């Protein structure tokens, strides 16, 4: 706005975080976040980029930045803003992605994220607010806490012999090749604030020009946790922080890197099927599948001990269903134990698009041990199906409103000569009971998820045994 300094358009008029007073931020009196917010919002206005700006809010005091900025907003898990920014920027290269982070977020829990994003030279802008303390949680020591600084967790002052030295993010990142622009500035007097304003604009302009990774570290006050007035805290920053965090430009390749056009990565699907050895589409129509009505678009939870092959069972069902032309997802979840722990996976099979890979209410539960049956039994949808291994589970499912299929899979596998193919017995039972898949498609898919080809005949016989068991049971 010419000739006047007015609240930026890139701020909402009212902040709808809470009812009541909605025209002020949640920040403490004198907080540096507000000033940096203003400088960023002003730059977004002036550059005319509001409609394509996506701001990533961190965890920390500035977690609610999305209530203030009238731009696209995403709030990321603690420290993960650079990773979220990376994803968004790569999918929407025309967007202007701002990763706004504090020192607890960026330098502590997210330390590796910022290093990797900087090292990849992501074309994003990072604003790193360093106030040498954990603000939101009440003034604990941060990686950036000054040597000798007293906090609630360093009541005698930070001892560098036991707690190390303040982490210098700009110095650290400027050892990398890829970053284009790294500067440390300070929100103190008007002169330094002007430098912050200039750095903010430069870091955003670099992204607009597709130059690459820019980071501005902004030394900022925390009057509340430093236990000073806002005016005193600015002086404290000058006297104490700047000597340990020298201001200046640590990297500036802005001039030597030419402005680049925005490149949108286009993903070409041709050739992918061949690369992944997925049979061509034509083959899919050969399978004529008529799932029983309750299992038209089944959602499966498959659970058991680690080592029972529950993950490979899910993978096999998903692989076969994919080859049959369904949309599928397979989401494994297992403990750190390879053997003996519990493992489960979620499988979606659908004629529709699959939204979330997560299955919270399965239509089909395959339980290969008792804890799994007890854990997931109550979650199965009405009219769903519970398949359980009666050779290991000596209890009946309690549900009356679902189909229940007990099969002594492990015992049958043992009779075939290998207890570890109990999962394939169950696969056979599953397809025979639901008709979601048939023998042909499963056998076609088998070599794609069974690595040891000499075991294919054994797996095939196990599948057939499982199918026979169900068909005999149904006929009897």
């Amino acid at each position, binding site marked *: 706005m010419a*000739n*006047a300094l007015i609240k930026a358009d890139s701020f909402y008029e009212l902040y709808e975080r809470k009812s009541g007073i909605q025209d*002020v931020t949640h920040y403490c*009196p004198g907080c540096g976040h507000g*000033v940096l917010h*203003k400088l960023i*919002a002003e730059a977004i206005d002036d550059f005319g980029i509001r409609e394509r700006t996506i701001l990533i809010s961190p965890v920390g005091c500035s977690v609610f930045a999305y209530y203030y900025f009238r731009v696209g907003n995403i709030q990321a898990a603690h420290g993960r803003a650079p990773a979220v920014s990376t994803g968004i920027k790569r999918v929407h290269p025309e967007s202007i992605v701002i990763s706004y982070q504090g020192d607890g977020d960026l330098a502590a829990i997210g330390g590796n994220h910022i290093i990797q994003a900087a090292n990849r030279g992501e074309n994003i802008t990072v604003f790193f607010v360093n106030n040498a303390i954990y603000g939101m949680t009440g003034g604990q020591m941060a990686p950036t806490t000054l040597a000798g600084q007293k906090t609630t967790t360093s009541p005698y002052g930070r001892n560098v012999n036991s707690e190390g030295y303040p982490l210098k993010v700009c110095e650290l990142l400027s050892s990398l090749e890829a970053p284009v622009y790294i500067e440390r500035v300070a929100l103190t007097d*008007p002169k330094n604030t002007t430098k912050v*304003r200039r750095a903010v604009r430069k870091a955003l302009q670099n992204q607009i020009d597709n130059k690459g990774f820019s980071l501005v570290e902004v030394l900022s006050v925390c009057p509340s946790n430093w236990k000073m007035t806002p*005016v005193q805290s600015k002086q404290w920053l000058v006297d104490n922080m700047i000597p340990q965090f020298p201001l200046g430009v640590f990297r500036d390749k802005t001039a030597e890197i030419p402005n680049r056009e925005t490149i949108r990565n286009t993903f070409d699907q041709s050739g992918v099927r061949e690369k992944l050895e997925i049979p061509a589409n034509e083959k899919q129509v050969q399978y004529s599948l008529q799932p029983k009505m309750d299992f038209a678009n089944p959602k499966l939870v498959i659970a058991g001990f680690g080592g029972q092959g529950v993950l490979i069972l899910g993978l096999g069902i998903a692989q076969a269903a994919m080859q049959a032309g369904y949309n599928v997802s397979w989401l494994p979840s297992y403990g750190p134990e390879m053997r003996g722990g519990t493992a489960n996976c979620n499988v979606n099979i659908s004629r529709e698009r699959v939204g979330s890979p997560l299955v919270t209410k399965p239509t089909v539960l395959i339980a290969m041990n008792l804890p799994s049956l007890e854990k997931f039994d109550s979650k199965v949808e009405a009219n769903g199906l519970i398949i359980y291994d009666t050779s290991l589970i000596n209890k009946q499912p309690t549900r009356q409103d679902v189909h229940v299929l007990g099969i002594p899979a492990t015992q049958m596998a043992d009779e075939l000569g290998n207890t570890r193919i109990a999962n394939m017995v169950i696969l056979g039972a599953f397809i025979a009971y639901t008709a979601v898949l048939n023998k042909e498609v499963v056998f076609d898919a088998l070599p794609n998820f069974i690595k040891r080809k000499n075991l294919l005949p054994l797996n095939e016989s196990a599948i057939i045994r499982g199918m026979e068991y169900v068909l005999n049971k149904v006929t009897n």
Partner: protein
Amino acid sequence: MAEPLKEARVVVREDECKGCGLCIAACPEEVLFEQKHLNRMGYHPAGYKGSGCSGCGYCFYQCPEPGAITVYKKGYVEEEAA
């Protein structure tokens, strides 16, 4: 059509001010002051003495609240804001 402003002017929205005092400390003309009364949040809001503002904007860029301070510079024409 309003006349262009003959002298710069600063407006403090008292209800949005948290009384941090940074604008007062930064003002080179010393035309901002801490008011005696309390605002709705219980802070002593900053106020403008009514004349002497140079329109430098120091207070605007010191103030952490997005809407608490507005600075109209000399020559500002009211209609621009509409």
